[in-house]
């Protein structure tokens, strides 16, 4: 197992955002995390990446316990997060945003040139400050920045949030390239249709717990939607309210 999360708990003050979550991700898998706003998806990703402290439980990466490791050490081991809302360094250029991440991670195929080849729309913007880019361009830069660390596990939080449909298509096209290169990915996605298309496995979160898991072929859209809204006990397809 590349990633093993055991009985993980994470809090924001008194609010328990992640409750007793366990999951496993094997090398080469693409796991989609779906769930409503506030279900704990972002906190779970941040806790795996080291941006948020775990209150209990363990995170094992390639067999090593990283629960207490700082975020930058996890980057060195091969975990990279594309944060929700992109969080680029707005006053640094696109080039600098990419280069600041490169060299901190592992050796591997991703370099400045490789990123520009995968995101050709960024090439002409190299010297532009990241803060001046459009949402789609920023998202591409954020993904490129994470790739620069040559991660073994890429965590992508809400890649399509706040983007125009055309920009989302662009982002997913490039994600597809990354997936085809054999990367292991955990993807947080609100758009169920897209999640089911790219993922090899889907986990649905509700109020901090994982309530449904399966492959896209096992799961029906309805079952996921029910779990999404917490209607699983209420029945199956009748529960449309």
């Amino acid at each position: 197992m590349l990633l093993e999360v055991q009985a993980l708990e994470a809090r924001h003050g008194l609010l328990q955002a992640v409750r007793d979550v366990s999951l496993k991700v094997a090398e080469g898998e693409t796991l989609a995390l779906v769930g409503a706003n506030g279900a704990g998806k972002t906190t779970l990703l941040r806790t795996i990446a080291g941006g948020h402290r775990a209150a209990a439980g363990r995170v094992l990466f390639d067999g090593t316990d990283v629960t207490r490791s700082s975020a930058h050490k996890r980057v060195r081991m091969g975990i990279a997060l594309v944060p929700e809302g992109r969080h680029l360094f707005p006053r640094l250029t696109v080039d600098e945003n990419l280069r600041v991440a490169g060299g901190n991670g592992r050796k591997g195929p991703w370099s400045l040139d490789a990123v520009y080849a995968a995101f050709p729309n960024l090439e002409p913007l190299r010297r532009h400050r990241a803060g001046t880019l459009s949402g789609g361009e920023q998202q591409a830069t954020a993904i490129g920045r994470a790739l620069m660390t040559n991660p073994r596990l890429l965590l992508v939080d809400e890649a399509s949030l706040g983007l125009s449909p055309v920009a989302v298509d662009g982002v997913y096209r490039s994600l597809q390239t990354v997936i085809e290169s054999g990367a292991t990915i955990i993807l947080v996605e609100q758009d169920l249709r897209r999640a089911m298309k790219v993922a090899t496995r889907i986990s649905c979160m509700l109020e901090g717990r994982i309530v449904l898991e399966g492959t896209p072929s096992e799961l029906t859209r309805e079952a996921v939607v029910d779990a999404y809204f917490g209607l699983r006990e209420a029945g199956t397809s009748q529960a449309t309210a």
Partner: protein
Amino acid sequence: MTWVNSIVHGIFLGGVYALLAAGLSLMFGVMRIINLAHGSLALVGAYAAYVFVEHTGLSAYAAIPPVVLGMFVVGYLLQRTMLERSLRAGVLVPLLTTFGLLVIIGNLLERIFSPDPKSLNPGVLGTTTWQITGTLSISPFEVLELGVAVLVLGVLQLYLTRTRMGRELRATSEDPDTAELVGIDSRAVYARAAAIAVGTAALAGIFFGMRSSFDPSSGPTELIYAFEAVVIGGLGSLWGTLVGGIVLGVAQTIGAQIDPQYFDLAGHLVFLVVLLVRAAIESGAIGSTRGVTA
């Protein structure tokens, strides 16, 4: 023509102010620490040079490399041992910590060196004068001082924009949490910034010591000059800091030209005016001053 003389000397003086202010600005830009002990650390640099000269008999210039290097290490350790801990406790604690440091340094210096003023000898460079015109004369020491200040600021600028460590420093100053997530060890970055800040402060402190005498209570005065230069020049820009230092220096020398008592007062007045203008502009405008830009 004496006015031209004051302005020119004010510009030279401004160079040292900028050198002193750069570190203060850097630490605030990167760690959000207002280092109240900045002037005191500059003063420690001057005293260290004084001790060096007393023991070796060499000139004060020879003291610059070892003292600056030593203060680099002091800055690094200061961040790692003391400021890093206090940063974890919120915004106010580092302010109190550095205030405590200011008091401790002042008292320690007084115990070790007595309250008597000391000075560093600028040597033949300080006593020679170049007669430019009838009333305008400058000393090679002043030229050297401004030259070193511009050189240090230029090197710092290149460091920030062209090197990997500089990029990491700017990224951390913009968003420390995200910096960690792209693999930057923010604590190491902070310690480097503190090393640069304290090292350059010590250099400025030595130059101040060559200009005029200093005593254990000079720290806060130097802090105020640095602070004023930063505010006049605008936070986050090294060249802005140079301009700020020069404006402050020129204001002081012009003030002193009117009446020697007005040296400090004129500087404070310019500072106050700039502050009021800035406040007026910022109250109408949005945008933040966070981050270090080159």
